[in-house]
């Protein structure tokens, strides 16, 4: 330990901190049960009911089942289902583009970056910017679980293309009244079109799932080791 370390440690014991006030007085005014828990349960029940209704509809409708195998478009993301698994799958989540500061990313895209409205989530640990399609920003939170939120304009359909095989489930969902897709499965490849117009293939292994939806002209893609309910609950708080 160096002198400055020793001096600072000694100093810490000599600081005259104000006395600690009673921090729980306002908690005592709260309802008996944490409100968040009630909200989450309500949300989970509503989403579960919706998922059952959608799944039932799909199962009963041959037309829907056929569409289910072909092509889905959500904003600038296309999801193409193949009868066979797509090629190589890498064992990591790969954000698009190069690492930049949040501020640079925010300045570089023609839309307002969305962030989760939560009490505890700090700003993302890393931010990536890809120039394709007018700008694709990926925000990465690392702790306690790695979650990637990708954002891009709706105006460039197909700039991100997902190809999924038979082992991947693609399920329509609703996020705050907007159509979305919940994609979960082991054979799942993502391609991003580069600024020169050629395809750059980014194979990813999806451990949990991917939620894709749109919000006021922006396509959002939430990826990570999340259950569908968790992803939907997070998505509802992204504004």
């Amino acid at each position, binding site marked *: 330990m160096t002198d*400055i370390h020793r001096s*600072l440690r000694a100093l810490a014991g000599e600081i005259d901190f104000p006395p600690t006030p009673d921090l729980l007085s*306002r*908690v005592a005014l709260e309802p*008996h049960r*944490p409100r968040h828990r009630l909200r989450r349960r309500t949300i989970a029940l509503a989403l579960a009911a919706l998922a059952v209704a959608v799944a039932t509809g799909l199962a009963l409708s041959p037309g829907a089942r056929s569409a289910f195998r072909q092509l889905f478009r959500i904003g600038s993301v296309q999801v193409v289902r193949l009868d066979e698994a797509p090629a190589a799958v890498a064992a990591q989540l790969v954000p698009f583009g190069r690492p930049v500061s949040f501020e640079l990313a925010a300045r570089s895209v023609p839309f307002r970056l969305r962030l989760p409205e939560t*009490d505890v989530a700090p700003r993302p640990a890393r931010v990536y910017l890809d120039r394709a399609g007018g700008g694709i920003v990926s925000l990465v939170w*690392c702790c306690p679980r790695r979650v990637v939120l990708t954002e891009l304009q709706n105006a460039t359909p197909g700039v991100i293309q997902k190809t999924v095989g038979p082992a991947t489930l693609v399920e329509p969902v609703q996020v705050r009244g907007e159509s979305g897709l919940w994609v979960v499965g082991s054979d799942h490849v993502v391609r991003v079109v580069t600024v020169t117009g050629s395809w750059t293939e980014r194979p990813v292994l999806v451990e949990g799932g991917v939620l894709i939806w749109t919000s006021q002209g922006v396509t959002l893609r939430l990826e990570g080791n999340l259950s569908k309910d968790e992803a939907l609950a997070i998505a509802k708080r992204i504004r």
Partner: protein
Amino acid sequence: MASRPPAEQDVVARAQHGDGDAFAQLVAPHEQIAFRTALMITRNTADAEDAAQDAMVKAFRALGRFRVGSPFRPWLLTIVANEARNRRRSSSRRESLALRAAAEVPSGGAAPSPEGALVASEERAALLRAVEALPDEHRLVVACRFFLDLSEEETASVLGLRRGTVKSRLSRALDRLREAT
């Protein structure tokens, strides 16, 4: 047979089911450090008190999102720090930390001479002034690591930084303190 205190995760589970006493039990060991964390960020006692109290309310509401088995203190302190940062933005008043009076400082051995005590006291005051004069990004890392005795990982969580950033900022801060004292 002697009964053991309940494990933190048992208390968390009870608090998550709305047991206010369990929440109080969970938070009690961390109240002092929560308040001091808020104080380091806001640099104002009243703001720190408000921030820490509001953070407790938010923590109580958000407890359903806390993952049982994860360490509770960094989760709580992160909420406190977020709340304190919000308060800091709305406040322009800054208070300086003070040292305790010499008679209150516990003696580690033989009493120093009056001259020696005076020199040591002046050196400590100079070091504290130097810490307070650091830019916030450096001051907060020093405060978390030395004044609050947070681990590197906790510091990163509280300040919303990567561990590597905490290390590099601390290194630069210590260099500046060596030059200033």
